[in-house]
């Protein structure tokens, strides 16, 4: 497949860019932060996004979706990355919807997917149990008690954990087999602690104390493979978002140094900065390539997805760090102030880098996949 967007994908991207610039710019995130907004995202913007079909892109038509594919979703994510838009896109659409598509029963799909497509239901994936990404190293347990399952454990850094209506929870039995369960956020025994993260996005610790559920998701004991595949898709989607963040930070920096004068000339005329800028340009070009290739691999159901997902998440983590660091340095003192927006990009980059595994995690995984 050619490494270019189709016309439809390009149109979707263009319209997303226009909408987000108008309705969810960086200033909107600042406002949510400064007002210590209770929800941490803007529900009316989210409703509008859903109305435009962004929550339905990967949902089959049978369940009220558009079945447009992940390459399309990636374009939306890239644009939200540019505007640093806080929304349930990553938690509910990119991650949980993928899990539901792959594992849910028809009845579960019927019950959940149309509501997600309409922007009326938020589902968060409660998986990690420490600050460092190790999705299958869990201690949260399940036991069967008659018709229902009993869950116990502590989940950390659950994206949108404090605004979710439902959780998909990973837990293991005594034989260390991992299963997934659906749990209502208001179920007895669920306690939620909202966290204030560096990037002002939503995350929470979710503890489960003798929580009852009778909603198993997928086949019991086969959760591990499901988690890995869904996470790979989420890694690629997050990489697409990071591509937007990185490009926007870079373009703003280039505009800045074209104009900003020191010693009577634009600082963009200093060759040392130019060479660093040109190097960043190249890395961003590489980022574009791997993100597009990985998105296409999802839609093509390619066997190479795991490797491409690690390549994408690693490369974007590396480049987002490089570019946002250099952005602040190129801006100079003004870049250190909260008034200037460039610092928001630095902060978002650091959180996104850690989410779903950082550079080192994926470098290690890549080497192992290649047999060394």
């Amino acid at each position: 497949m050619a490494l270019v967007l189709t016309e439809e994908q390009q149109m979707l991207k263009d319209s997303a860019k226009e909408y987000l610039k108008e309705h969810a710019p960086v200033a909107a995130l600042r406002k949510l932060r400064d007002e210590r907004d209770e929800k941490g995202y803007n529900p009316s913007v989210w409703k509008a996004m859903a109305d435009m079909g962004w929550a339905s892109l990967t949902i089959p038509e049978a369940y009220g979706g558009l079945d447009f594919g992940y390459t399309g979703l990636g374009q939306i994510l890239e644009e939200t990355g540019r505007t640093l838009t806080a929304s349930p896109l990553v938690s509910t659409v990119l991650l949980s919807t993928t899990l539901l598509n792959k594992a849910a029963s028809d009845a579960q799909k019927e019950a959940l997917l149309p509501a997600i497509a309409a922007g009326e239901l938020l589902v968060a994936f409660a998986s990690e149990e420490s600050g460092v990404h190790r999705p299958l190293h869990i201690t949260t347990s399940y036991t069967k008690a008659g018709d229902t399952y009993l869950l116990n454990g502590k989940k950390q850094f659950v994206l949108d954990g404090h605004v979710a209506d439902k959780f998909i929870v990973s837990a293991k039995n005594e034989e260390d087999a991992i299963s997934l369960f659906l749990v209502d956020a208001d179920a007895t025994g669920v306690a939620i602690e909202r966290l204030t993260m560096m990037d002002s996005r939503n995350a929470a610790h979710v503890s489960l104390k003798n929580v009852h559920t009778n909603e198993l998701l997928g086949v019991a004991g086969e959760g591990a493979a499901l988690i890995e595949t869904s996470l790979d898709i989420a890694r690629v989607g997050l990489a697409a978002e990071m591509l937007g963040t990185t490009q926007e930070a870079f373009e703003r920096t280039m505009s800045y140094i074209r104009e900003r004068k020191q010693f009577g000339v634009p600082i963009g005329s200093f060759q040392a900065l130019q060479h660093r800028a040109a190097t960043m340009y190249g890395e961003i070009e590489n980022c574009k390539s791997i993100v597009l290739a990985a998105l296409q691999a999802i839609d093509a159901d390619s066997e190479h997805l795991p490797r491409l997902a690690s390549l994408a998440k690693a490369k974007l983590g590396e480049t987002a760090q490089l570019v946002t660091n250099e952005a602040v340095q190129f801006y100079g003192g003004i870049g250190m102030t909260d008034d200037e927006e460039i610092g928001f990009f630095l902060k978002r980059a650091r959180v996104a880098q850690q989410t779903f595994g950082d550079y080192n995690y994926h470098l290690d995984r890549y080497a192992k996949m290649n047999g060394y």
Partner: protein
Amino acid sequence: MSITQFRTETRAWLEANCPKSMQKPVKKFTDLYWGGSKPYFDSEDQKIWFERMYERGWTVPHWPKVYGGGGLNKEEAKVLKQEMKALNCRPPLYSFGISMLGPALLHFGSEDQKLQYLPDITAGKIWWCQGYSEPGAGSDLAGLQTRAEDKGDHYLINGQKVWTSYADKADWIFCLVRTNTEGRKHAGISFLLIDMHTPGVSTRPIKLISGASPFCETFFDNVKVPKTNIVGEENGGWAIAKYLLTHEREMIAGIGEPAEVPLHQNAIDTIGLSNGMLADTILRPEIARWSMNNEIFKMTIARMLDEAKQGQSLGAKSSFLKYYGTELNKEKLELKLAATGQTGLVWEGEAYDDGHLPKYFCRTKGNSIEGGTSEIQLNIVSKHILRLPS
């Protein structure tokens, strides 16, 4: 008194007189006593510790006694520093008066000025701040625009400074102002002391990406300043500025918490060992690489100071020290974040040390900007040490 005896007595005195709560690492602003006309002590211990040290002249141990210092010679001052470090004693008084203005006055001030200002600095009576940078000037310090017009017996100051540390709390500011608008831009700058309580001076704090506001914008609107407040010659301020910048660079290069936990220990605590090696085999060489560079860099600081003692001036080498020290510090915080994962990105909450790590991480990004950017330091090295053509 022999130096050995001095060491023994100093240690005994510190052990007897430094309150236990003053023997803890400095973590936040109020852990230090900053002095000023409206002094604030965070605790009774902090007050006692300041008073006991001040009584001996040990708020600034190496200044002459006549200016309120301790009159210690270099060797004694070093011993005192070592013994304080051994006990983890906090500095009894922290101020830009001690670190910045004092050295400038000792070097360039008149005897009257020394007697007028230095004792108040050692006593912590005046809070000084620095007024160098201006909006839009950035690295081009010599391009500053704040005007000091000659009005016979006084100057009339109009203009704006930025990045003035704690100007909202300060009593006085030491400033670079333009006293001549003609000729080379470096040649029209003077070094001026201004009472912040003078009518026409106002400040506005700047919020940083770390969330803190240690700096201000400072505005001068027809501010009258007596001509005697000039240090050195009129239009001779550039030499003082350069002297202080070199001084500041050396200070910044030395950044780092005292008696700090080594980075690798930090990583071991977070990640753990496996077969005696850091369990994260990818992070391990990165930690080791940083630690090696850090250990060697400390030797370079020591060597350059040893050479300086032998008469080879430090000069532009301080630019390298500033550059390398600040880049190392930034890299250290990147590695700390890498070692802690998302936990190190929580911005608030007691369980997360009120976000000390991510906030300090953000703060370090300014290390390579303030006091002359890394780019400026590299320019200085290539021009003044490597003699590369411009």
